[in-house]
């Protein structure tokens, strides 16, 4: 009997690998079918045998290969290798995105979508902004070396009769809201004291995907290049006149509508759109409000249905908000108050060497809720580095038309850039 079978069964129980691999194989083909793809229709090669061998390569193997590609280079421009792998086919894209992960954990920016995902929890991502006064443009680049950093985002200021707008784009050559590279914008009021940051996409996916039909419509809009994107108000920045009139430091206050204040709590998170704007991976993953407790899910689910009905109504500007009534209000950031330095006779903030030129534009943002915790005045000097850890966004001048921008969780590069741009804008009332 059964010896043969015994052996065979033996393989089964001894070697999970073999079975995992088989199951994965059928899974991947199943998802391809789910996604509505006709393999015969798209296939343009000439040998089905060759084709299937790579398509069915067990995900764990592909993952191993991509991990090697990914791990070899953590800096630009070599990170484009993994971007290239992600564009080979669906299964490769899925694996690449999974391995690359979110900047929140990896502290790396790889795909454009990472610009709208929260920065690292462990420490800031260091960037710099180059201003071109002649063309009213701003370039955000990654890195310390201000010569060769990876280009991230560009913005162009447009003066309107009653306000100014800063269009933000992935493409420095093509900055307009009709561009496929359009990411969002910053808009000021007449006085330049209040700003709103608009995202071209709804900031988190629950807001859209739960609607079924209307989300499909949204999806197809994104794909066709000519149609302008939506505008979702995700943040407000306000500058207040300070007690000393025009001479003293500004007071800033940022309300981040798409980030709950609870995101800064130990198990907090930012609901976010983990995929490319087109939600290319819809067929692979379910709605991505992961990490939350089941209870949260229900609450958010209901909330997102509300939101989505608003999104589907064709308002050009949609306010996105988290549940402000509960304890989950939006995250509010305020600038750290500078201290008057008697000897230097100026206002001082400790930028840890990242800012070298005094400017009214320089600022450090901390969570407003942390305000009471660090006390007033006396406590700040001894708090030292732990105090510095809580700075979520820091911006300051290092040269003529050159500025540093260091941001971290829970802000994204896009949000941080928007806030920094507001600091560039002339403030009639504050200066």
């Amino acid at each position: 009997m059964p010896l043969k079978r015994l052996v065979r069964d033996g393989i089964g129980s001894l070697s999970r690998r073999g079975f995992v691999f088989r199951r994965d194989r059928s899974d991947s083909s199943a998802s391809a079918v789910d996604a509505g793809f006709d393999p015969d229709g798209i296939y343009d090669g000439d040998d089905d045998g060759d084709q299937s061998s790579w398509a069915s390569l067990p995900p764990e193997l592909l993952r191993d290969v991509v991990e090697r590609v990914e791990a070899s280079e953590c800096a630009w421009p070599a990170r484009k290798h993994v971007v290239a792998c992600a564009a080979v086919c669906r299964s490769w894209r899925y694996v690449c995105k999974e391995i690359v992960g979110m900047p929140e954990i990896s502290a790396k920016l790889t795909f454009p979508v990472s610009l709208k995902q929260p920065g690292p929890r462990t420490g800031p991502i260091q960037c710099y902004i180059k201003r071109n006064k002649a063309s009213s443009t701003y370039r955000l680049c990654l890195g310390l070396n201000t010569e060769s950093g990876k280009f991230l985002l560009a913005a162009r200021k447009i003066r309107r009769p009653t306000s100014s707008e800063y269009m933000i784009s992935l493409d420095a050559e093509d900055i307009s809201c009709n561009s496929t590279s359009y990411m969002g914008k910053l808009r000021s009021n007449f006085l330049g004291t209040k700003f709103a940051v608009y995202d071209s996409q709804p900031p988190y996916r629950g807001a859209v995907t739960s609607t079924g039909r209307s989300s499909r419509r949204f999806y197809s809009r994104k794909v066709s290049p000519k149609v302008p994107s939506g505008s979702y108000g995700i943040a407000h920045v306000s500058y207040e006149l300070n007690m000393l009139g025009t001479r003293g430091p500004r007071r800033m206050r940022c309300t981040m509508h798409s980030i709950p204040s609870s995101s800064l709590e130990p198990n907090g998170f930012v609901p976010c759109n983990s995929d490319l704007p087109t939600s290319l991976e819809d067929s692979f993953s379910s709605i991505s409000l992961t990490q939350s407790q089941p209870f949260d899910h229900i609450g958010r689910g209901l909330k997102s249905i509300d939101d989505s009905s608003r999104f589907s109504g064709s308002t050009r500007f949609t306010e996105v908000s988290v549940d402000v009534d509960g304890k989950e209000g939006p995250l509010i950031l305020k600038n750290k108050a500078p201290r008057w330095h008697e000897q230097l006779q100026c206002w001082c903030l400790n930028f840890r060497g990242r800012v070298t030129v005094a400017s009214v534009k320089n600022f450090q943002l901390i969570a407003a809720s942390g305000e009471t915790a660090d006390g007033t005045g006396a406590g700040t000097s001894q708090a030292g580095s732990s105090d510095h850890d809580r700075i979520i966004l820091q911006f300051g001048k290092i040269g003529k038309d050159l500025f540093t921008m260091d941001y971290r969780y829970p802000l994204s590069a896009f949000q941080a850039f928007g806030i920094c741009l507001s600091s560039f804008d002339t403030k009639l009332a504050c200066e």
Partner: protein
Amino acid sequence: MASTSNSTSSKIITLRSSDGEVFEVEESVALESNLIRRMMEDDCANNIIPLPNVTAPIFYLVIEHCKKHAEMKDNKEKKKELRSQGEELLKSDPHTYSNLMEAVNYLDIKSLMDLTAQWLADFLKGKSPRLIRELLKIKNDFTPEEEAEILERNRWAFD
């Protein structure tokens, strides 16, 4: 077919590929495979061991690589030779290469898993998606809209 010379007193293991071919392999070589090792530890290996996921040509290739890998230890020349053979196979017959990777994975041969994955990873670096598809004969299963979108977004990375 691939019976090895049993010059030493090394035990011979008999294996059968999915297409029914029988291989006799020196124990030392066979034990590179953790799958076979586990089966032997559990005493399942007194008879012919079936390998339902591996065809004869691929298994032959695996054995060949295993032997070379055993020889190459501390030998830079051999290492280079093995690597260039691997790369050659990847270029000339990517289909077989992917089968080799799967077989090595199934047989759980750690050293070869590392090598084949690393060769492929190095091969991919610096190549465009289109070139990778072409060289490895991978089907482009994105819709034209998706591909346009990806290319558009990738410009950002390749700037």
